């Protein structure tokens, strides 16, 4: 912050390359007042929520299946591992072809960027259930279904939550990627516009807002997780 102020306010760096904090602050206020910022932010938040929820709703059951069944694992994991390494960015033109440039395409990009990673992270979380707890369930006479619901899911829940928290962070990146290329609203779209008109102050403002939104969602999920999995914290 100090470096940024020094470099810009003393005229060391041209405002075209890096606007001063004051300029960024002014831009923030303008954008807030003209209503563009709230519109952009809500468009982006809506997209990320829908895309991420769609991915999560599909990834949780599939990840659990892969983590618990050797047969499903053998059938799906290599495929998912393969798809996971395909660059999502390269799919942007294709998704436009498939889904147009509306919200559906944003959902698709966010889904593609998070779903496959989620599946593998969740499968791993489920696999980490200690053998001893499963043995315990068996000796207590529980059937496989009861072991899954009463032990495996409960035991891996904190790790699954972590996987969701981490992939939500990635979802923000995919959102911006999708909005940079083809959009008529959203935080990423505004950054593209800023680029087009050399409004570096707009770009910086929106980049900072994206950072803050990401940080806030992460902190909310962290706090929520700490509440749900209170028992994990050592207080001996």
């Amino acid at each position: 912050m100090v470096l940024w102020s020094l470099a810009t306010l003393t005229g060391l760096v041209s405002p075209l390359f890096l606007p001063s904090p004051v300029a960024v602050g002014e831009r923030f206020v303008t954008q807030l007042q003209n209503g563009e910022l709230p519109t952009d932010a809500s468009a982006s938040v809506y997209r990320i929520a829908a895309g991420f929820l769609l991915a999560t709703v599909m990834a949780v059951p599939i990840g659990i299946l892969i983590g618990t069944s050797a047969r499903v694992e053998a059938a799906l994991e290599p495929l998912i591992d393969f798809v996971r390494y395909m660059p999502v960015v390269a799919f942007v033109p294709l998704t436009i072809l498939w889904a147009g440039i509306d919200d559906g395409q944003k959902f698709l990009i966010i889904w593609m960027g998070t779903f496959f990673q989620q599946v593998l992270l969740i499968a791993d979380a489920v696999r980490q259930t200690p053998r001893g707890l499963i043995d315990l369930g068996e000796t207590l006479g529980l059937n496989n279904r009861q072991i899954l619901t009463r032990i495996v899911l409960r035991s891996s829940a904190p790790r699954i939550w972590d996987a969701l928290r981490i992939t939500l962070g990635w979802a923000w990146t995919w959102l911006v990627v999708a909005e940079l290329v083809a959009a008529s609203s959203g935080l990423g779209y505004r950054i593209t516009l800023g680029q087009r008109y050399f409004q570096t102050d707009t770009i910086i403002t929106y980049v900072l807002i994206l950072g803050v939104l990401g940080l806030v969602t992460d902190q909310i999920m962290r706090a929520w997780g700490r509440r749900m999995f209170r028992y994990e914290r050592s207080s001996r």
Partner: protein
Amino acid sequence: MTPKVSIRDLSKSFGDVHALDRVSLDLHANEFVSVVGTSGCGKSTLLSIIAGLTEQDSGSVTVDGVPVTGPGRDRGVVFQGFTLLPWLTAQQNVQFALQDEPLSRAERASTAQQFLALVGLAGFENAFPRELSGGMQQRVAIARSLSYKPQILLMDEPFGALDALTRREMQTLLTRVWEQHKLTVLMITHDIEEAIITSDRVLVMSRRPGRIRADLTVPLARPRLAAMSSEPEFRQLYSSILELVHEPAA
């Protein structure tokens, strides 16, 4: 007297390793039997087969004459590691074993509290496993295994992860609990002193192939006290077991 548990010619190999080689033994009702041996002699495999968690290559295990085909609530198991469910409190961990029993909520709670009190954990009902020491966690696990009243209790080095002082305390506690609630116990251990102080009989197992090398009756009177470890009978039994444990396979 027909034995409670009868094991005949039990063999199990993992690849080239003969973990168990034609092991036969009987456990009589309400008897406390220990199996001692060096680590890797297959004694945990023996317990796991009796528990129904591992399948044998050949031979049979019967409980009251009925062959064991899988895990069951007639056999309670206390594992070596701490197997408490970290998301449940001590009381909930005990109740976890009771959730499919035809009991009311209140009955479940009072049974759990009663067994926690039995292992000296009254007042710790609402503590999470993380908040309990290793010895306390293992006591909760023992309370849980006893709570659904299995006829047989199988224990795999239950105190192996505890420090020496806590171990002694736990052995006394276990002996006391067993003397009050008679049930058939098979305990796996590598601690000869622990085996003698707790058991009616001590079986010595050899290593690779795992075989029962000796079956020794403990002549000490009950109730057993920690001070007994200095009695001549104790010392004599101790050294003969020690010798058997380390004797090379015939």
